[in-house]
């Protein structure tokens, strides 16, 4: 999951709340999903939630602690994410986007849940399905 999906997972008022639920329902039909994200992405989502107060931060924290595994970005993924960010001039994804994708690939994830269009071009060709 990227931050654009983590936030609406916890916040009912968000524009993508219903889309996240629709995707989770669909995933449940083929088994019990395991939701993962990178620790950097989680911190991005926390920073977003902080904009609307600590109660919103608390909601995200409780949802992630219960339902999402936050995997640390290791040094290898960090270096590769930075290399891609600096080298792929035609892509608008952030270093965090690249790192999150690399973590997903490392873990063997089947799909990425995102509502950030910058993610689509970097996920193309990786074999990961992009859910939205």
């Amino acid at each position, binding site marked *: 999951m990227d931050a654009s999906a983590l*936030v609406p997972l916890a916040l009912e008022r968000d524009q993508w709340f219903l889309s996240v639920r629709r995707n989770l329902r669909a995933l449940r039909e083929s088994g019990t999903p395991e939701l993962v994200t990178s620790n950097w992405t989680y911190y991005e989502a926390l920073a977003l939630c902080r904009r609307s107060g600590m109660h919103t931060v608390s909601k995200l924290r409780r949802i992630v602690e219960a339902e999402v595994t936050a995997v640390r970005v*290791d040094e290898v993924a960090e270096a590769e994410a930075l290399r891609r960010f600096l080298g792929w001039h035609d892509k608008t994804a952030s270093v965090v986007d690249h790192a999150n994708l690399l973590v997903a690939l490392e873990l063997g994830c089947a799909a990425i849940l995102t509502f950030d269009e910058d993610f689509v071009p970097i996920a193309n060709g990786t074999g990961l399905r992009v859910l939205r």
Partner: protein
Amino acid sequence: MSARLTVVLDDEDLYRRLKVKAAVDGVPMKDLVEAGLRHLLGEPAKVKPEPKQFDWERYEALIEQFRKEDQELGDEASYPTDLSDVKHHLYGYPKAAERRTLHVAEDREEYDSH
């Protein structure tokens, strides 16, 4: 294949800190010891927490709890509905809808000789 190695740590505080870190990271202590050995041997660490299985009922219960808290705190409308727009709210880009409009306007049209 697995191999057994029994180690008696002389430093009790080191053991205690290892135990705390394992609890914080949500991984067995064995994984942290392996990561330390890999680091010592120049291999990248491979510490991954145990994955959580998504529980719909538990998730729904949390969302319901949030609704109650919002009502109690008068917090129902305290944040924008597009808070998930990471690039806008965190990086200062234009809103996603505006970025899409720009993208479409920039798309190259097919050449039409007529």
